[in-house]
């Protein structure tokens, strides 16, 4: 026991004296959170829209007003089509709408009234908004205008509510998800260096000739970095909930318990990489490419897993971050759902045990 505590103490000394571990555990997550908070935004709050009225009917002034007061679009009125086309090409506007001649007349005559919407197809997400926002503005205008009696009531009216994220604020699911990515990075980066470093500096050789056992090495690498990881998680959650005001509907005990399971498997992957290299540089490079990148791309945070090809979908099953992303998003947005907690935990436990076994097998007590 005293051997193990001596080793753990040593590990903590190294952590506190080496600024890079503190940077990895606290500064880097902070930077990532800030980037995700202020840099990444999947909602487009204001799209830039061109407007061209070919109908000079005075009734249209109220429509123009509706566009101008809308909080979703920023409109610019064009007099001729040519400059409007050019502005679209230059990216000054994201799309434009043309209200053709006799638009009002057609409505008054209960005829079909057309409008033309042109969007910039090179930005698919944005063009969806360009399509949807003006339509809803026009529909609303129509319902409030003097023509509202002319409009046939639709037979079916859809009542849409966004549950779990009523304001459809993408931060509410990106930030918790990014926590999972951050924790992956921490779990792997912190640990990939620690065994490789001992080999590189020749300290492993000295350790192996003391009374130390394989179990001592194994535990002395898991325990300190597990503690540091949990501390970093607490810091991250604090930043999300208190500073960035992301609503949390779940249970903190559940959150940290599952996080513990996740860290267990992430550290396992990091240590597995580390135990296979005797060179810190190689170890950290491979941690990024075989550990972090798949976690970022295949965890379901950036690209939905359902839309991946089947092979990739199967690969995601061995990526612990996938389970953690699923869990943490539902824990934040929808609260504790025991089925989700249970299923993801089981997978994390399985992965954690498998990697731990592999790490244990891979720790060498000889030099070769």
């Amino acid at each position: 026991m005293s051997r193990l505590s001596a080793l753990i103490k040593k590990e903590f000394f190294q952590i506190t004296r080496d600024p890079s571990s503190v940077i990895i555990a606290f500064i880097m997550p902070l930077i990532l959170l800030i980037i995700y908070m202020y840099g990444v935004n999947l909602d487009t709050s204001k799209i830039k829209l061109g407007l061209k009225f070919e109908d000079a009917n005075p009734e249209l002034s109220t429509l123009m007003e509706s566009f101008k007061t809308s909080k979703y679009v920023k409109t610019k009125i064009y007099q001729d089509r040519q400059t409007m086309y050019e502005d679209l090409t230059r990216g000054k506007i994201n799309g434009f709408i043309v209200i053709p001649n006799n638009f009002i007349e057609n409505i008054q005559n209960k005829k079909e009234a057309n409008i033309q919407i042109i969007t910039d197809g090179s930005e698919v997400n944005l063009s969806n908004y360009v399509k949807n926002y003006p339509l809803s503005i026009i529909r609303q205008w129509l319902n409030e205008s003097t023509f509202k009696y002319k409009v046939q009531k639709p037979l079916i009216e859809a009542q849409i509510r966004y549950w779990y994220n009523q304001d459809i604020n993408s931060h509410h699911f990106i930030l918790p998800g990014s926590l999972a990515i951050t924790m992956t990075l921490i779990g792997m980066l912190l640990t990939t260096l620690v065994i490789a470093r001992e080999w590189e500096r020749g300290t492993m050789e000295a350790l192996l000739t003391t009374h130390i056992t394989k179990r001592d090495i194994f535990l002395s690498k898991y325990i300190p970095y597990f503690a540091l990881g949990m501390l970093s998680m607490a810091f991250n959650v604090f930043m999300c909930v208190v500073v960035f005001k992301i609503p949390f509907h779940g249970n903190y005990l559940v959150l940290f318990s599952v996080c513990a399971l996740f860290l267990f498997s992430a550290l396992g992957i990091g240590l597995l990489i580390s135990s296979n290299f005797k060179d810190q540089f190689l170890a950290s490079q491979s941690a990024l490419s075989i550990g972090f990148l798949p976690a970022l791309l295949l965890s379901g945070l950036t690209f939905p897993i359902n839309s991946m090809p089947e092979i990739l979908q199967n690969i995601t099953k061995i990526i612990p971050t996938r389970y953690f992303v699923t869990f943490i998003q539902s824990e934040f947005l929808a609260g504790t759902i025991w089925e989700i907690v249970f299923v993801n935990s089981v997978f994390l436990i399985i992965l954690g045990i498998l990697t731990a076994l592999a790490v244990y097998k891979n720790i060498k007590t000889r030099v070769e």
Partner: protein
Amino acid sequence: MNESAIEIKNLTYKFNSSDSYALEDICVEIRKSTISGIVGPDSAGKTTLLRCITGLLTPQKGNIRTFNLNPTKQQEEINKILGYMPQKFGLYEDLSVEENLNLYFQLKEIPESNKNEIFEKLYHFTNLEQFKKRAAGKLSGGMKQKLGLACALLGKPDLLVLDEPSVGVDPISRKELMKMVKELSSCDTTTIWSTTYMDEAQSFDFCIVLNKGKIIYKGKPFNLGKNTKEFENKIIKIMGGYKEKESFLAKDFTLKKTDIECPVRAIGLEKKYGDFYAVKNNTFCIKKGEIFGLLGPNGAGKSTSFKMMCGLTTPSAGSAKIMNIDIVKNPSKARSYIGYMAQKFSLYGSLDVLGNLNFFASIYGLEGKEKETEIKKVAEVFELEPFLKQDAKELSLGFKQRLALACAIMHKPPVLFLDEPTSGVDPIARKEFWSHIKGLAKKGVTTMVTTHFMDEAEYCDRISLFFKGEAIATGTPDELQKKAHTKNMEEAFSVLIERSQTK
């Protein structure tokens, strides 16, 4: 006769990545309570042999009994009686001296009750008491070695295995280290000490001389020679002998004619870090065709002087001139006259030999036909032809050194800077190396060299002895020996340093 501590029969070890044997058919017996030396150049198999004895490596063939234990199966039992110091000392650089000692104290499960007494004794012998709180990474090389040894000595091991504890250390520190081993280990301790220094082998009870994985001599060192020179000459003879011959390289070497008398000059060179002088008021002038040696313990300021001379560090005061060109004011012009061989052979490990030659030829400005002929010539002279397609990192140390020298002289520089060029290579390679340097000097190449091999000092025309940042004596080897009233350089070195300290 004592009973045997280690018995090795037909030991053979081969690395997976290599075609040749690291150790081949080793048979040897080491007696208890002796100090044995494993002597040999780098990559002779010394470390591999030590690792097999301690169980850190499992040999493919052969039998080892270490204190009647089988290292392959009983590694844990061996660890209970073992004190081991690996080549990089095995210290945690972020941990303080005290924390390092504490860690190894606990890992060796020594009863806490004696702790204070043991630590006090170790601090006393290592003189590390005052540096207790200092991080191990911030100690000087000599102090690191002492601390590493102290960690290995914890728990009074029956078997003390030291892997090149004295590499790169000056003669004074080496003597101190040997003294520590003798006084701190109990008289029953069996010590195995590997080294590249021939003179160290002299002081052991028993020595095993390894070369290319084979034992070329085992027995009492005294039987081989009464002093280092005799010993070394015998070893060279066993290795196949060395014939003094004119350096083929120097034969075809021609320099542009110059009238400059002192191609290398240092004028009041100084380097200050905070209030600490790494180098203090260093003035010297190296004449054309002279071999000038900088000698001194680690941290004496040799390397710093060296770096200032080639413009890698800016001096705090003073200046250096290469072929009358100020290195600070016009570094690239001055450097074009220098052929530089760095301490660790700055070669590109993952480039093959030919790639390295090509690269260095190009950056030194050789082109076309000239480049081709030069590369062909150096490859021939240094016998690098069979290895042209091999990665530089896979070469043995001796060949790395040859390649580094080849890269440094292809552009025929009038000035040659060599930083510890021969540490770790076998005696024959060293002799060969010096024959090239001597030959080049005859052709007018001015050479500045750092070394801590005292016998090599005698190859130098003039020596500057460095201590604590100052040149405490300068002169020909004979002059220095006369000044110190001694008969060899090593003693002269110790005497002159002691004299300067008492001043």
